[in-house]
């Protein structure tokens, strides 16, 4: 049982690294897209990790024991993890989905125009 969340951070960084490495090194467009979603996942994991606290429950108040004061419905702040990063992640994920979808659409069309998925084939405009 780890006190901090090095594990998550390390994993997240690892995912980001793998993703971006794929993006910059693999020449296949599809793989580049995959790389991006891997990296996105890494970022999302990192964000959640930022809001994570050891032995606290999710920010869903389904039993009164979590409340410090029933009248004002105030929640014991030590009881739950930070809800904000989770909200942010939700948004980030959806955005990631959107971008990935668009990228795939691009790949489809690029393949249609060039008949190839090699990124180096798409460098006509330069200098």
């Amino acid at each position, binding site marked *: 049982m780890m006190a901090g969340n090095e594990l998550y951070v390390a994993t997240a960084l690892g995912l980001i690294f793998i993703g*971006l490495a794929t993006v910059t090194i693999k020449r296949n467009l599809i793989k580049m897209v995959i790389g991006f979603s891997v990296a996105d996942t890494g970022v999302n994991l990192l964000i959640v990790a*930022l809001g994570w606290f050891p032995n606290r429950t999710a920010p869903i108040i389904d039993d009164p024991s979590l409340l410090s004061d029933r009248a004002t419905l105030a*929640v014991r*702040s030590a009881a739950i993890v930070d809800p904000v990063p989770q909200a942010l992640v*939700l948004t980030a994920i959806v955005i990631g989905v959107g971008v990935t979808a668009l990228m795939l659409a691009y790949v489809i069309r690029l393949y249609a125009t060039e008949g190839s998925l090699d990124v180096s084939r798409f460098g006509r405009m330069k200098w």
Partner: protein
Amino acid sequence: MKQIVSFLALATLAVLLWNLAPIAMPSDLGPVASHYVSHGLQENRGSNLVTSVVVNYRGFDTLGEVTVLFLSVSGVGFVLRRRSGLKVHRQRPASEIITTGARMLFAPTVLFGAYIFVHGHLTPGGGFQGGAVVASAVLLLILADRDLVLPHAALGWLESLSGFGFVLAGVVGLVVSGSFLANHGIIPLGTWNRLLSAGIIPVIYVLIGLKVGSELAALLDVMVHAADEGEAHS
């Protein structure tokens, strides 16, 4: 050569980022977060604090989020509006098992998705998750039968109206309590942990669920038919 440089650069970058780990370590809740924790339930009556943050406190983000999805779906449609130059060899039709399984699973999956976004303010999940599940049901059908033609008109209406509804809800808030997407005095907040509580939040989340579901379905449809002959239908 370039690959090596990229690799080294990235490695260095990763090492560099590792310096941020200490910052990432658990500390006390920030001022905003602790406000949500201590007042969230009272202010929104939504048992799922994440949902109150997503739909109310940071509802504007969520509107943007929906917009992003909508935009990317339109974008995909726009990018794929031309069908020229793609030749996809037809694969043989899906097997009996898949078709039957898909038909069997479709209704329960849709129901499950609906459940998720209807209970978004009480239980984990919400509009997006629910919508995604619903869309996955559609995906099942498509897997079973590639030539399946979805009811585009209906999806379109659903998409548009649910999105419009979201904005409308926001504007209602603006009119009623002077703040966009406000959750006061529109629908009574009710008591927490009940299905009918948290004011307008569930309404919005249902709309989101419908929108996400229909949009993702449309997205799948466009992508699957990217290679079909003829102009895309708008």
